[in-house]
């Protein structure tokens, strides 16, 4: 199989995954008890008005037709109208996504070097106290919910030390530097949650590479330890890490919901939360699908990178 064929197969599987996801998300929306028009118009509305609105929203049609209507518009970028905001879901989702990407980017810029450095350090010191300390800290940081670490960090840096702002809402017209300053505290809970996974995978990859034959060859032919580590070990050890980083985009999305609520940040997490609270199903379906698309694309990107960077896959494909 060529690299192209492998990637085409993965892309096709991603499409099937997204289609199944759309069915599940749509089915989730249908579980809503009661009548959507009744929910919008309130308990005192006239029954005829409710029936009219149902017809206007197309809710009196068979489910399959409703699904087809939703998904066929969706793939063209039209996610329908929000019940609550009376605005295009696509516009709302894209605006919120812009905010979330900023927050996620700050978190990633911080966590990738930290996690890789922590993992490599732990691997080089494997079995010694430093290794144990990094592993336990990484594990603890990963398993504690984001809102818990977020609140403890707000208390320390925002309330007691007063060095960082406690909301993510920067003043209007703020430049990139000020925005990053406001995003530091919200990004830290995400950094902590991601750090453990990243450090653990990097540690495992590095230990494997340190024990490999090519590393022994490099040491025996007289290369300096520094060169062995950078040129032979890390190049191989970081391969699985790339996959982890890409799949972590998915974990990050879960954390965003909580962190954005905690810091009152208008990203896609806050949007999903508001849509779920208000039972605004077009908005909920649209924003949840967007998360699924981002996750699936990042998993696909991980596969592509892995195939391109791994000489074993690259060369076996060339045969």
């Amino acid at each position, binding site marked *: 199989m060529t690299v192209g064929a492998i990637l085409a197969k993965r892309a096709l*599987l991603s499409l*099937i*995954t*997204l289609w*199944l*996801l759309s069915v*599940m*998300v749509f089915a*989730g*929306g249908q*579980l*809503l*008890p009661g009548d959507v028009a009744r929910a919008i118009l309130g308990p005192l509305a006239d029954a005829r008005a409710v029936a009219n609105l149902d017809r206007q929203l197309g809710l009196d049609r068979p489910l399959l037709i409703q699904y087809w209507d939703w998904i066929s518009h969706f793939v063209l970028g039209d996610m329908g109208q929000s019940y609550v905001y009376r605005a295009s879901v696509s516009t709302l989702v894209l605006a919120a996504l812009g905010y979330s990407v900023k927050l996620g980017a700050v978190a990633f810029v911080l966590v990738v070097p930290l996690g890789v450095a922590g993992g490599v350090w732990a691997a080089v010191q494997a079995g010694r106290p430093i290794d144990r300390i990094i592993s*336990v800290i990484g*594990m*603890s940081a990963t*398993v*504690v*919910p*984001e*809102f*818990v*670490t977020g*609140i*403890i960090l*707000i*208390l320390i840096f925002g*309330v007691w030390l007063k060095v960082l702002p*406690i909301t993510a809402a920067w003043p209007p017209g703020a430049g990139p530097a000020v925005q990053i300053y406001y995003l530091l505290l919200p990004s830290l809970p995400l950094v902590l949650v991601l750090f453990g996974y990243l450090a653990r995978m990097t540690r495992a990859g590095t230990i494997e590479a340190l024990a490999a034959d090519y590393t022994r060859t490099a040491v025996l032919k007289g290369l300096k330890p520094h060169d062995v580590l950078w040129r032979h070990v890390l190049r191989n050890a970081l391969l699985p890490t790339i996959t982890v980083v890409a799949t972590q985009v*998915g*974990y990050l*999305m*879960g*954390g965003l*919901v*909580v962190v954005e*609520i*905690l810091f009152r940040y208008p990203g896609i997490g806050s949007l*999903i*939360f508001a*849509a*779920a*609270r208000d*039972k605004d199903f077009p908005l*909920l379906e649209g924003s*949840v699908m967007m*998360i*699924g698309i981002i*996750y*699936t694309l990042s*998993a696909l990107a991980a596969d592509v990178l892995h195939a391109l960077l791994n000489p074993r896959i690259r060369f076996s494909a060339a045969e």
Partner: protein
Amino acid sequence: MSGRWRVLLHSGTFMCGVLIVAFWTLCAIFGHLFVHFDPFEDDILNALGPPSAVHWFGTDQLGRDVFSRVVVGARDILEVAPLATALGLLLGIILGLATGYFRGLIDDAVGRVIDALLALPLVIIALLALAAIGASTLTVIVVIGVVFAPLIARTVRAAVLSERDLDYVAAARLRDEGTVHILFVEILPNIVPSIVVEATVRLGYAIFTVATLSFIGFGIQPPSPDWGLAVSQSYGLINGGIWWPVLFNTVAIASLVVGVNLAADGIQSAFDE
């Protein structure tokens, strides 16, 4: 099995985790007998009092004693998270045994559905489901259990795949044992270690998720003294320097999840040896 137990009892990580979890379990069961205040009783005149000799952890905005609420607050999460995990295990083991043993079309189809589910973070799936059916203790258990089921099934399936072609399974088939018998009496006992490891890791995730859902208002409902719920009711106050209703509850959540995961870590390394 006894060898594994000896390794476990000598593992500092495992014992440390078990002690923390045991402490909170005792608080959940007997805590109400020891606290000096009724965790549900309002005392508006003494609202938001800082920690003192009378109220060790201070009082919240309704004047309720935070110490009593933290102690008794262990109860709901230690009911909901283990029950959700148990439901997930029950469904996941059945699904995993069936897909791993029969393979074929069902296996492929279930695999695709699991991939689609995994394309969403657990908190978002739960939010979507709970928004649709309404949040209560029971629905939280069901939603987390049902979402866990395919994830657990994947682990069970992998374990079944390495067992199904072994001689004892072929022998059982030749003895004309029924499929259900082969799955649950022959194969299941041999994959218990994988299931135990999976169960403890899942329990950690369940506590993480229940706490998070309670914090965003889609989990355990008032007037429960649940930790995540207490944090969501009081975290707006920390701007004004009122930290005590929040801090002790967050520390409680952090200690419980770290405890469960230390125990899980210990079990995992004991079973790997």
